[in-house]
């Protein structure tokens, strides 16, 4: 029974997507209902992993090499919990955002399909199912991104689609090579068997390269800003907060789990250097961005960069409490960014709807007339900067400490510069909110849309920062050793 619940986070949204396609008239209702059920099943599964440790199941009665295997460990459970809560917030928001518009009808099936694929990536236990889920994720994400139908959005997402296809085909070639070597695609079996060889190294490189395209690692992020900035707000939130995390999750899984025996400090340094480039370039572009959503999209590029800074340090630290702390910090960073960026995009969408545009320099009035939305941006922004008490503050702390411990002090400079730039672009937005425009009577002006944004942003700051301990226990680590 307990292992069967591994299917639910994938089956429920898939079922919901089919139903929403079949019954478009009640699609929003079905969508929110499915979202609630999916989120509950995801959290339930996270709880199960917390209580009873890793879970796995093989579907369809086939043995392991052939059957479709699902498994959940602490890492997948943490990301599943993120996708559950963020997905629920996005769904509730979308209910208000798309109400009365025809686009909503197309939104719900695609969004539920995207969610299916996302949970599938987090739970799949073999490399080929991961490919299918990644492909499904890319397709539904590109279709969702083009939902507005504007020329910018469609062409940006067409590019996104092609880049995604290139990424997944490259990944698939890597899968083929590893199958040549070991005759299995199961992650658990492979991680026991993998030994250094040229073939395996090539396979890792191909998979990583394909996924790095999808994760928008600098300088391969070229498709992300236009695609994310031109999508409707709930879609931007899902793309930036969740979809890029799926590719990152897989890279992390490959480097720290499956191929842990063949990874190397030099290669990890390359990933870290690209991450550093992402931090600096992404933050700089965010600072220069004229539009709020473009700013958020570039900020995603930078935040992905932080996640890649963990690789050289994870590589350099010997197994032990210090490495566990660093790994948990990496997960915490990813999850915090998921919440914060979703909250930021949802709030930005409200500002855009209110003002009719999202040019930062002209947002003063709209920002001041929506206190709750501005507050959400401030909260999410402080998590993006890495201010205490957000989760990314703790993650950055551990990251910097590990950098000192392993003697790789140069990352500190990158982090400090990135933090300064992040503060600059966030406060550039926030300074628009101070002025003497008339204020509305009450804090919340549009509850259905503002509350999800506010709660997501709040979670990134308060929930994840003040009580980061659960991430550690979910991953099966002892308390933090700082």
């Amino acid at each position, binding site marked *: 029974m307990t292992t069967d619940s591994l299917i639910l986070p994938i089956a429920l949204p898939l079922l919901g997507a089919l139903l929403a396609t079949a019954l478009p008239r009640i699609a929003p209702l079905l969508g929110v209902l499915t979202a609630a059920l999916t989120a509950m099943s995801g959290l339930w599964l996270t709880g199960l992993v917390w209580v009873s440790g890793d879970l796995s199941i093989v579907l369809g009665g086939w043995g392991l090499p052939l059957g479709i295997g699902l498994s959940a460990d602490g890492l997948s459970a943490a990301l599943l919990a993120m996708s559950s809560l963020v997905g629920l917030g996005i769904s509730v928001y979308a209910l208000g955002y798309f109400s009365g518009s025809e686009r909503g009808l197309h939104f719900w099936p695609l969004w539920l399909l995207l969610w299916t694929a996302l949970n599938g990536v987090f739970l799949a236990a073999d490399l080929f199912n991961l490919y299918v889920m990644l492909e499904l994720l890319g397709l539904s994400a590109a279709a969702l991104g083009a939902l507005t139908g504007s*020329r910018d959005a469609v062409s940006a997402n067409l590019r996104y689609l092609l880049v995604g296809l290139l990424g997944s085909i490259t990944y698939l070639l890597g899968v083929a090579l590893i199958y040549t070597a070991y005759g299995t695609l199961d992650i658990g079996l492979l991680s026991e068997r993998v030994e250094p060889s040229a073939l395996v190294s090539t396979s890792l490189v191909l998979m990583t390269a394909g996924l790095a395209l999808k994760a928008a690692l600098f300088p391969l992020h070229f498709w992300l800003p236009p695609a994310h900035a031109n999508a409707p707000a709930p879609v931007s939130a899902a793309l930036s907060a969740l979809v890029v995390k799926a590719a990152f999750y897989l890279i992390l899984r490959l480097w720290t789990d499956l191929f842990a025996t063949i990874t190397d400090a030099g290669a990890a340094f390359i990933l870290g250097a690209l991450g550093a480039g992402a931090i600096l370039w992404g933050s700089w572009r965010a600072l220069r961005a004229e539009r709020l959503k473009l700013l958020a999209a570039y900020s995603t590029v930078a935040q992905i960069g932080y996640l890649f800074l963990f690789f050289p340090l994870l590589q350099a630290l010997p197994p032990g409490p210090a490495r566990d702390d660093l790994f948990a910090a990496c997960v915490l960073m990813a999850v915090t960014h998921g919440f914060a960026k979703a909250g930021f995009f949802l709030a930005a969408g409200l500002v855009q709807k209110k003002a009719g545009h999202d040019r930062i320099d002209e947002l003063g009035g709209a920002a001041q007339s929506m206190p709750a939305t501005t507050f959400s941006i401030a909260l999410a922004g402080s998590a993006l900067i890495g201010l205490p008490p957000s989760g990314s503050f703790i993650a950055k702390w551990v990251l910097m400490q590990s950098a000192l411990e392993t003697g790789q002090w140069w990352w500190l400079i990158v982090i400090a510069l990135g933090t300064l730039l992040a503060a600059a672009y966030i406060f550039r937005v926030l300074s628009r909110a101070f002025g003497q425009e008339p204020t509305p009577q009450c804090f919340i002006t549009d509850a259905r849309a503002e509350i999800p944004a506010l709660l997501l942003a709040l979670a990134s700051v308060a929930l994840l920062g003040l009580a980061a301990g659960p991430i550690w226990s979910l991953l099966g680590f002892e308390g933090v050793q700082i």
Partner: protein
Amino acid sequence: MIAQFLYGGAGILLFALGLWSLLVHAPLLRKLIALNIMGAGVFHVFIAIAHRGDALPPDPVPHALVLTGIVVAVSATALALALNSRLEQGENEPEPASSPSPGPRIHMQPALSTEPSSKGATHP
């Protein structure tokens, strides 16, 4: 054995040729064909792997993977064509004032007539 290597090598070659074409040629249709050729290359590699010597029957797993892969490739192609046709329609209509966002850099070839529905395209 030689046949296996030939097949696998041809697959890799197809992959590389497809990649070259994808990166160099601007029209969307050529990019899509290039991606499909890359896919075909990977499928070749899978089929080469399936060979387990003359005495044994071929490994069924890579075959299953190739079949799934073809379905995925077809739906991806369909979605790309659907998006492209949307783009063409938009080109014929008067364009709304677009905000100063980074413009796209894909040069599209408005010469496609296939029009699969986007909904069908996303259900592999």
